[in-house]
């Protein structure tokens, strides 16, 4: 199978008060379509940074990034935004739902940028909320849901546009054991059943068990 994510000689530094903070050095990584890649490593090693680069919400200082068939390092801001909404789904540690919107409305958000009609949107939203097992919580607000349920809404939002790639940054980091297990099982199902290529960052050794590949990042280098 072909590499759906190609990271070639990528370096990334942040600048703080004109001081360069190098995070990733000359990193190269290929991810094959259908993989469930888990990234582990100590805090500050650059896991989130790498994930953000792959997902096109940050830009590399150097190197090439070819993701889902697009050279994303060359896209301008609005091109990148369009590409993101079509190609990647995001799951964050702190869910990042919009508190004033219901589960349904949160999941519907990415679809507002598509040409889908209201009834089509409804169908899609209900469908993914059923997949994550929240068909009965459609009109609940985030604060009326448990952490695990919130994260499932976030996952539904990530997959509602049917992207090929799903990135998740410590999706179980803020959850209790049972909820975490449910989320991991869901991620595994999305990978196996729905053929999503997943890149997930985690500190949880159990999460690693679900991976088809496990990589360690240390001080900006893959080991």
């Amino acid at each position, binding site marked *: 199978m072909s590499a759906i994510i190609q990271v070639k000689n990528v370096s990334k530094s942040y600048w703080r008060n004109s001081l360069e903070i190098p995070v990733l050095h000359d990193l190269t990584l290929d991810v094959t379509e259908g993989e469930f890649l888990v990234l582990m490593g100590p805090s500050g090693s650059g896991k989130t940074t790498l994930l953000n680069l792959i997902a096109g919400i940050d830009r590399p200082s150097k190197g090439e990034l070819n993701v889902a068939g697009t050279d994303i390092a060359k896209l301008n801001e609005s091109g990148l935004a369009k590409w993101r909404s*079509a190609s990647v789904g995001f799951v964050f540690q702190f869910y*990042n739902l*919009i*508190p004033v*919107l219901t589960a349904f409305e949160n999941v519907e958000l990415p679809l507002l940028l598509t040409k889908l009609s209201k009834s089509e949107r409804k169908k899609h939203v209900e469908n993914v909320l059923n997949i994550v097992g929240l068909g009965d919580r459609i009109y609940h607000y985030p604060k009326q849901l448990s952490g695990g349920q919130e994260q499932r809404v976030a996952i539904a939002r990530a997959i509602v546009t049917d992207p090929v790639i799903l990135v998740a940054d410590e999706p179980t980091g803020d959850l209790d054991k049972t909820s975490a297990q449910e989320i991991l099982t869901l991620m595994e199902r999305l990978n196996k059943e729905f053929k999503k290529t997943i890149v997930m960052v985690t500190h949880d050794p159990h999460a690693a068990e679900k991976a088809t590949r496990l990589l360690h990042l240390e001080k900006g280098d893959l080991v």
Partner: protein
Amino acid sequence: MKILKLIFKNALRHKLRTTLTIVGISIAVIAYGLLRTVVTIWDSSVDAAGADRLITRQAVSFIFPLPVAYKSKIESIPGVKSVCGAVWFGGTYKDKSNFFARMAIDDNYFELYPEFMISQNEFDKYKKERNGCIVGKSIAEQYKFKIGDIIVLDGDIFPGRWEFTVSGIYKPRNKNTDATQMLFHYEYLNERIKQETAVRGDQVFWYIVKVDDPKNSAQISEQIDAMFKNSTAETKSETEKAFTQSFVAASGAIITAMNFMSYAIIGIIMLVLANTMIMAARERTREYAVFKTLGFSAYHLTSLILGESMLISCIGGGIGIGLLYPIVSGFEHVMPKGFFPFFFIEPVTVILAASSALLIGVLAAIFPIQRALHTKIVDGFRFVG
């Protein structure tokens, strides 16, 4: 559509904060409207002055009279169309708190003031009645004067009991026309004064001079004053506008302060709203990062923030303007009767207040929008409020 719903939901997030902001804006709009209303009243009483009318009075002071003989002399100056003498009567009607202007005038007064509209019928009746008087529509309504009624004034400048018959009621032509005057025959006053205090007879307080072309006002004023130079009663002539302005000059500083205040208030509303919007946008830094991650554009974020800011400013402005009318009319009621010859909210005041509210909605959103657009997604996610 969905954006609109989100704007509403966002505005309602902190109900107390939003409510206080709206109340603040409303109060400021009311204060602004009230100040502007008072300012425009002053301005429009000056504006009401006819450009083609001059006022000639005694050079030393308004309270010293001029001989009636001046009338024909002034009339002889080229460019002068007609001249009307006038006497401030003063006096009291029933109670000292009943303010309204009472003046003795020559009959051609109404030719010089076409904005005081009187029917030919009533005017003919007035001319026939020796003690006839014509009252403005506003005071006729206020004191329930009808044609044929007797009005009794208690004189002070001209002591004694004075009786008048209402011959007519004049209507104001314009909104800023003073409809609170009571006007009567100079002859009626003069006859009795000549009998009682002969030295005070045949004198008026000022002349109203109608010129054929306002462009000649300055030159004619000079000619009039030159004509009476070195006489016992030297004159001072000026346009009616300048005359009215000198009357309100004492209040000029207050008006300037009020003008300044009204602009300061707009500045304050803006700070109140900007503060609310900046707080709101700061709290939502992460959410904006989420929107951007999902592919929402600068246009969407701008609509969200601008929409919320405009929503709050429009509601506040709307409530303020809505309450302005009852409050101004309440204000009119607590002012002494007739203190202002007219009291109304100029449409321009409402337009100014409304457009200020809109403008403020836009201005208050600029900084939060800038911040939301310029924050990088990754920094947005790392932001801790």
